């Protein structure tokens, strides 16, 4: 029996093409060895103003330009294309949801909103054309920032009073009453500023209308092939069956590519059909900044009641979420904040209420973590404040509030983002805490801090815990097909943006089916191969598609064994499949390979190749019965779906030691540690890579990255020069990682999601560490040296508060 691949660090199959420069990303589509021929390129006129009415659009000079094929504005759109883009995830609390039009109709609501769409011979000419379009505007006062949205001196949308898109309150028990009765009480105000996913590859779409067969083929850099397919079909008034969406290689998503349809995802196919040509849109980096999506901007107010041990009696959180100009993705982000804020704790009484507000800025859709970072930040800063107030160790206060290992499954009494109960399936938070304390050297730190202080140096330590609901439904599916060559072709409908799905899923198939890993080929995100799918987000791919693929492979195996048993005249229970060969256990001479079984599964009249001829040495079936039995199908396929009752809850803890420069306030990371529980690991090398990447993105989000809007709604840092993503030099040399595995009882492989974990506790852990180093509260993140310097100056002039929030731990 060969060793199982589950749990082994198998090298990635994707690398073979990526390393040779043979990936096929969306901008590569339509390019052959002789270059790109016959593909037309699109460019978009985008609003330079944050809020304005459009009085007139003059495109007269555009069509004169040589190389321009067509230009569209709103007036050229008809039928469903002229209606607003879909509001993908409605919610009863979203009483005032608004989505944009594919091209701005009467007004624009953020810098970057699409106004006109030009198609030309190449992108250079298309941009020239865009530059010739003349628009006259009537300026409207822009609303920028949560404070201004709340004050509502101006409105983003005339028919949305107070700029409030939604208000949602959830209660577990009676938090206000419990807080009033609690021995101690604290209030905190906590802020996180906007950031963004910023994958290295921006958005793009290519479409080709095949008039010979009346089919629209779309390639788009998306996280959901089926979502785009449905939207294109509806908007272009095509049958679903006439549209194919093929997800190419995608250069990172991190959430921003789950939103759909982008205006361009509709305009490109529309143009392709109208012009009878292949049309391509590839956004540039500035466009990505001003017309994709952002996330993270929230302001929180916490009231908490607790006792002498730090045990929470009641937690009351009010927060304000800035969702930008439109709400296509509904309330997912603030709902996740509301629910995941609880983390590994059981606060006894919990009240959370949020308002989701409009501003004249880019819209907000999930970014890795999707509201959890804000929730974790809020909860963890509260825990730190309680510890400081009581003069207790910050880990002791947390431990006292943990859900204990014997309390699972634990129902938090709320509804999660998937519409299901927020019930944690498994976890061991005390064990994780032991591990993270050991990994970071928590108990030794006070001594270290003192000795550094004696040398005039400031160091601080922070720790943060999180719980992440992963593997949300509704379902994913898989199709496993064993071809007569022995190759195993696997398809699942969700998509890939660097997670190594083709490798990880092949491991699962090889394990279950007994074929060799090298014979498995996995395709993701192609609606021609698997048209039933949801998408890649919420750390769900391994759980959802992994489980579905495992189940589908199981079905295929059942059929293999049934046919092979017949061919080998043995019982299925006596058979084993090793490296693609089925044999009788203990009798290796009696064997049949998977390819031959595949031939036998499909009783054709014609022998096409050697494989079919070779198969004739075996005889299967009963000559007295139909060649294809009544409940069966020809071929060697397995198809199955996995649809869980609820999400499965991964968890983890991060800790960091930082040093702050007394003169320049520069922040240096001395040590970063991660303890991580995502159940059973399919490929530990890939999971670790996800953690590294998440931690780096978290460091970026805590110390470097933010969206800098000015009061007129201009994004001041819409480039990589001024939006500061970390290079290797900004990331510590090592990240200490330890694992815990509490398997999930909810899926056959016991796995939990891993993709987002690295980034969830970053704001919390850095705020805590810097506060510990400085001795004054850090309540707004991200933080730069300049901001830290300003806080230092202010904390020197202002008197010390009587309710000491955030004084250093003893």
């Amino acid at each position, binding site marked *: 029996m060969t060793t199982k691949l589950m749990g082994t660090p198998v*090298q*990635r199959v*994707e*690398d*073979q093409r*990526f*390393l*040779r*420069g*043979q*990936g*096929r*990303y969306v*901008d*590569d589509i339509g*390019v*052959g060895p*002789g*270059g*790109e021929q016959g593909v037309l390129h699109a460019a978009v006129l985008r609003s330079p103003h944050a809020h304005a009415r459009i009085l007139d659009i003059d495109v007269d000079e555009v069509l004169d330009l040589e190389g321009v094929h067509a230009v569209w504005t709103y007036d050229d759109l008809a039928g469903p294309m002229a209606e607003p883009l879909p509001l993908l995830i409605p919610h009863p609390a979203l009483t005032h949801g608004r989505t944009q039009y594919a091209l701005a109709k009467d007004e624009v609501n953020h810098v970057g909103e699409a106004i006109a769409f030009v198609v030309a011979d190449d*992108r*250079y*000419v298309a941009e020239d054309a865009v530059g010739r379009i003349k628009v006259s505007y009537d300026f409207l006062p822009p609303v920028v920032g949560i404070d201004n949205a709340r004050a509502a001196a101006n409105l983003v949308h005339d028919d949305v009073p107070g700029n409030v898109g939604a208000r949602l309150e959830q209660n577990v028990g009676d938090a206000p009453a419990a807080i009033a009765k609690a021995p101690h009480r604290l209030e905190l105000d906590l802020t996180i500023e906007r950031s963004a996913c*910023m*994958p*290295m*590859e921006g958005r793009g779409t290519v479409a080709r209308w095949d008039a010979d067969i009346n089919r629209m083929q779309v390639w788009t850099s998306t996280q959901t092939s089926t979502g785009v397919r449905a939207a294109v079909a509806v908007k272009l008034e095509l049958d679903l069956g006439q549209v194919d969406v093929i997800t190419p*290689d*995608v*250069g*990172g998503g*991190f959430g921003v590519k789950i939103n759909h349809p982008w205006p361009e995802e509709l305009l490109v196919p529309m143009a392709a059909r109208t012009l009878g040509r292949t049309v391509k849109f590839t956004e540039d*980096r500035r466009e990505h900044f001003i017309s994709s999506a952002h996330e993270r901007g929230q302001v929180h107010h916490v009231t908490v009641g607790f006792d002498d041990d730090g045990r929470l009696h009641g937690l009351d959180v009010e927060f304000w979420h800035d969702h930008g100009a439109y709400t296509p993705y509904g309330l997912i982000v603030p709902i996740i904040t509301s629910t995941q804020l609880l983390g590994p704790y059981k606060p006894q009484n919990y009240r959370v209420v949020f308002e989701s507000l409009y501003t004249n800025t880019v819209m907000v859709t999930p970014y890795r973590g999707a509201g959890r970072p804000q929730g974790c930040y809020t909860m963890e800063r509260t825990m730190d404040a309680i510890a400081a107030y009581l003069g207790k160790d910050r880990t002791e206060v947390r431990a006292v509030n943990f859900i204990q290992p014997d309390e699972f499954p634990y129902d938090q009494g709320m509804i999660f983002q998937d519409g299901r109960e927020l019930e944690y399936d498994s976890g061991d938070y005390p064990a994780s805490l032991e591990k993270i304390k050991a990994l970071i050297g928590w108990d030794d730190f006070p001594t270290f801090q003192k000795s550094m202080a004696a040398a005039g140096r400031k160091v601080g330590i922070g720790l943060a815990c999180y719980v992440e609901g992963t593997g949300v439904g509704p379902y994913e599916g898989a199709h496993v097909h064993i071809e007569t060559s022995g190759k195993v072709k696997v398809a699942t409908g969700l998509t890939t*943006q*660097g*997670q*190594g799905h083709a490798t990880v899923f092949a491991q699962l198939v090889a394990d279950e089916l007994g074929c060799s890993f090298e014979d498995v080929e996995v395709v993701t995100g192609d609606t021609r191969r698997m048209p039933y799918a949801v998408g890649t987000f919420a750390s769900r791919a391994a759980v959802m598609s992994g489980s579905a693929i495992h189940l589908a492979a199981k079905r295929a195996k059942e059929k293999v064994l049934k046919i092979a048993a017949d061919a080998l005249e043995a019982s299925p229970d006596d058979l084993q499949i090793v490296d693609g060969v089925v044999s009788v256990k203990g009798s290796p001479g009696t064997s049949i390979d998977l390819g031959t079984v595949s031939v036998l599964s499909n009783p054709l009249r014609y022998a096409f190749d050697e494989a079919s001829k070779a198969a004739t040495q075996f005889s299967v079936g009963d000559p007295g019965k139909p060649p294809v039995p009544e409940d069966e199908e020809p071929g060697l396929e397995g198809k199955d779906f996995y649809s869980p009752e609820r999400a499965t809850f991964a968890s983890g803890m991060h800790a960091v030691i930082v040093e702050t420069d007394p003169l320049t306030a520069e922040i240096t990371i001395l040590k970063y540690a991660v303890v991580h529980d995502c159940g059973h690991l399919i490929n530990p090398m*890939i999971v*670790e*890579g*996800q*953690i*590294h*990447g*998440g*931690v*780096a*993105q978290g460091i970026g989000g805590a110390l470097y990255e933010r969206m800098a809007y000015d009061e007129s709604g201009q994004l001041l840092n819409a*480039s*990589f*020069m001024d939006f500061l*993503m970390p*290079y*290797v*030099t900004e*990331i510590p*040399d*090592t*990240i200490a990682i330890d694992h815990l595995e509490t398997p999930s009882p909810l899926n056959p492989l016991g796995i939990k999601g891993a993709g987002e974990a*690295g980034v969830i506790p970053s704001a919390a852990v850095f705020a805590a560490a810097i506060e510990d180093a400085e001795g004054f509260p850090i309540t707004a993140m991200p933080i730069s040296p300049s901001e830290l310097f300003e806080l230092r100056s202010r904390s020197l002039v202002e008197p010390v508060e009587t309710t000491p929030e955030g004084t250093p731990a003893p």
Partner: protein
Amino acid sequence: MTDELHDVRMTVNGVAHDVRVPARRLLSDALRHDLGLTGTHVGCEHGVCGACTVLVDGRPMRSCLMFAVSAVDAEITTVEGLTGADGSLGPVQQAFAECHGLQCGFCTPGFLTTITAGLRENPHPTHEECRDMIAGNLCRCTGYQNIVKAVERAAELVSTSSTTGEGAGSTTGAGSTSDGETA
């Protein structure tokens, strides 16, 4: 202003190509769309991310900050040129596969060319020098830990391999230290 076309002979990965392009055609676009070498990727078009890095006469340069017309008389190596003539992975590519130095693969070609030149200039880099070698390239997926490991592994593979080049088209070494040399 009309787009006058210029005849440009570009030598890429050892092969001469004649293209007719407007002066404003960026080298990155010419490589990708005129020559069909889509391995070089475009992440920002303002010279910061490094995904577009190619070797020009053996030295890493941002192809998004050059015009194709300027690339005349230059020998360019792209990621495709790092693969062996028989299709096998070169040492830097091999190291990345072993060390899981890539996830989505979009930034990877820029790292591969940069490191290839970096190791020619400094075949035995210290750990710090390995980090320094990749300090001008952005990656959003990997967090760099495994990329640094890949640089170290690549140095090992390069020094144990008996061949000098990494497949077709590799040219003169980068960055000699004598004075007054023209680029």
